């Protein structure tokens, strides 16, 4: 069925199609219309789920955790300060290896107080052991939520997934979305029934304590699961394509990367604008490409290297900043490319903070800046290419 949906409505539709059984939520902009829509579904009888109206985001994730360990499929959503407030619960859920899906409608962190999009909220949770998938469109938001349930519960992964969609740009912007049939989703996504759950006949402890002799082993297996997730994310994407004829490439989504001298790396909805700019510059004969990073954790080192190996300059646009250093994605891309025999130069740019528009002109400017650097290199001029801030 084709419907005119914004990103948040697309996520809500996916949660209903995934047959989530327990939803715990606390409102925060720009996430709130996701859980409002789910509340409407439950109120009109079109979705059967327990809706826990908690008193905070911290409690929302704790309630999801409590439900998930009983063997139910759960969902929550948040943004910005709410995600920051959940921070303590994030490693609890991932460390206990509880699969669940949380939508993050990305929004900048205060101060200054803001409600608009950037990636600082989710990026700040980088090391909490959650899989982070960033989507480009409302369609991809819907599809990725369905994929995320399958990835999270994969027996070799058992790790929670954040589906990140840019606040307002995706959460509140409508597009035509193909909403799959329930029967088709049921065929793709079987009910969640974990091997271990709260059961008085088999009394397990969830969230155990561990001393220095055992703690590292738990963390080692967690890391192995995350690394394994790279292949599982790709597998699930291929499986999704077989069921629904749509694919997002798994971990990275390259666009004209094969012969590009300059490749721009972005996450999220900016990719839509960047595609237009790549098309425009290609028409002008410029060898430019785009790499959209879909999976930020696990970090797709191999796929990135494969896609960027022929680039001369890699421009990275971060919608975040690790204050005192640079954009987080820029650091990560540099690290990923460090092992290559011939390394492209990496230039980090920071833009779109707190909802500042990233225009086609901004992106064309980044491409031209880097293309010029390539030309200088060809003339034998040696110099470091610096990125810039969109102030």
């Amino acid at each position: 069925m084709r419907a005119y949906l914004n990103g948040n409505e697309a996520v809500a539709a996916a949660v209903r199609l995934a047959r989530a059984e327990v939803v715990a939520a606390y409102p925060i902009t720009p996430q709130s219309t996701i859980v409002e829509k789910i509340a409407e579904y439950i109120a009109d009888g079109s979705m059967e789920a327990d809706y826990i109206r908690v008193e905070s985001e911290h409690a929302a994730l704790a309630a999801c955790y409590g439900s998930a360990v009983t063997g139910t499929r759960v969902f929550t959503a948040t943004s910005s300060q709410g995600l920051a407030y959940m921070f303590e619960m994030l490693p609890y859920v991932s460390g206990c290896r509880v699969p669940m899906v949380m939508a993050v409608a990305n929004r900048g962190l205060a101060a200054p107080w803001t409600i608009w999009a950037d990636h600082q909220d989710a990026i700040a949770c980088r090391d909490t052991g959650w899989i982070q998938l960033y989507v480009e469109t409302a369609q991809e938001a819907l599809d990725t939520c369905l994929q995320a349930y399958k990835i999270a519960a994969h027996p070799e992964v058992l790790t929670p997934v954040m589906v990140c969609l840019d606040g307002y740009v995706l959460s509140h912007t409508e597009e035509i979305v193909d909403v799959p049939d329930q029967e088709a989703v049921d065929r793709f996504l079987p009910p969640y029934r974990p091997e271990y759950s709260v059961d008085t006949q088999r009394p397990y402890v969830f969230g155990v304590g561990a001393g220095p002799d055992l703690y590292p082993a738990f963390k080692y297996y967690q890391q192995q699961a995350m690394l394994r997730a790279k292949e599982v994310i790709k597998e699930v994407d291929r499986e999704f394509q077989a069921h629904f004829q749509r694919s997002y490439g798994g971990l990275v989504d390259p666009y004209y990367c094969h012969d590009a001298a300059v490749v721009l790396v972005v996450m999220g909805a900016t990719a839509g604008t960047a595609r237009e700019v790549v098309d425009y510059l290609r028409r002008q004969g410029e060898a430019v490409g785009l790499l959209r990073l879909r999976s930020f954790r696990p970090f797709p080192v191999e796929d990135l290297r494969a896609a960027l190996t022929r680039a001369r300059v890699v421009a990275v646009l971060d919608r975040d900043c690790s204050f005192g250093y640079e954009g987080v994605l820029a650091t990560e891309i540099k690290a990923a490319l460090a092992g290559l025999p011939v390394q492209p130069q990496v230039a980090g740019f920071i833009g779109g903070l707190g909802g500042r528009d990233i225009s086609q002109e901004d992106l064309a400017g980044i491409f031209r800046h880097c293309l010029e650097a390539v030309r200088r290199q060809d003339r034998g001029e040696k110099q470091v290419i610096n990125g810039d801030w969109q102030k």
Partner: protein
Amino acid sequence: MVKIKELPDVELVQGSYACAGCGGILAVRMALKVLGPETVIVTTPSCLLGVTTFYPQLAFKVPCVNVTFPSTAAAVSGVVAGLKCRGKKGVRVVGLAGDGGTVDIGLQALSGAIERGDNFIFICYDNEAYMNTGVQRSGATPLGARTTTTPVGSVGRGEERPKKDMLGIVAAHNIPYAATASIGYPQDYLTKVQKAMQVEGPAYIQVLSPCPPGWGYPSELTVKLARLAVQTGQWPLAEYENGRLTVKEIAHRRPLRDYLAPQARFAHLPG
């Protein structure tokens, strides 16, 4: 009324690392005898978690869900909803937290869960300070008590504020059932646990659980001090039921000195 002689000899908590004379583990062990095997425990980083669920030494014979310090009651709500979804009826979900995890950092989640009317029992084992981290004061520390964050010195005279009225706070939520208890009065305590089990909706029990190292007394005095707290009027045994608060009468009140004198935390108080 629970009859002590009729309690099952089956233990649902055993082999814990608790200190000798721990009032907290006694509170949990006694409650489980009434609650029975169809129980799920939700607990929080505390002495209790430290002494019962450090892998691979797992002391509970019932399922146990450990969660972050502020979130006991929120996770309880999740477990209740999850069990309902899985069609598992007749399983009691019991939140267990110390006084810090209840009256301080856990208060918001507890308030939310009570207000939602979820069907659970919350037992606060009250040892009147943060014992797991080394005896720092909590909102449940009584006036005048010495703790490591309310030390006694040339200026400091121990805890400066009276104990938080937690029963009053939960009662203000129109909770169906709430009570205070003491491990020194097992029949009273266990009858209250039984009443809590029969309640439809949330029930709260705050059970005074003396702590030998934290309070500074020989470990064999735990039960005696738990009785003296009641007999001296320091810890009234109260019940809030159907909107009415009742307090157990103490026929022959003992002088407060009898309760305070054996405890190092009150040693600085004038004779």
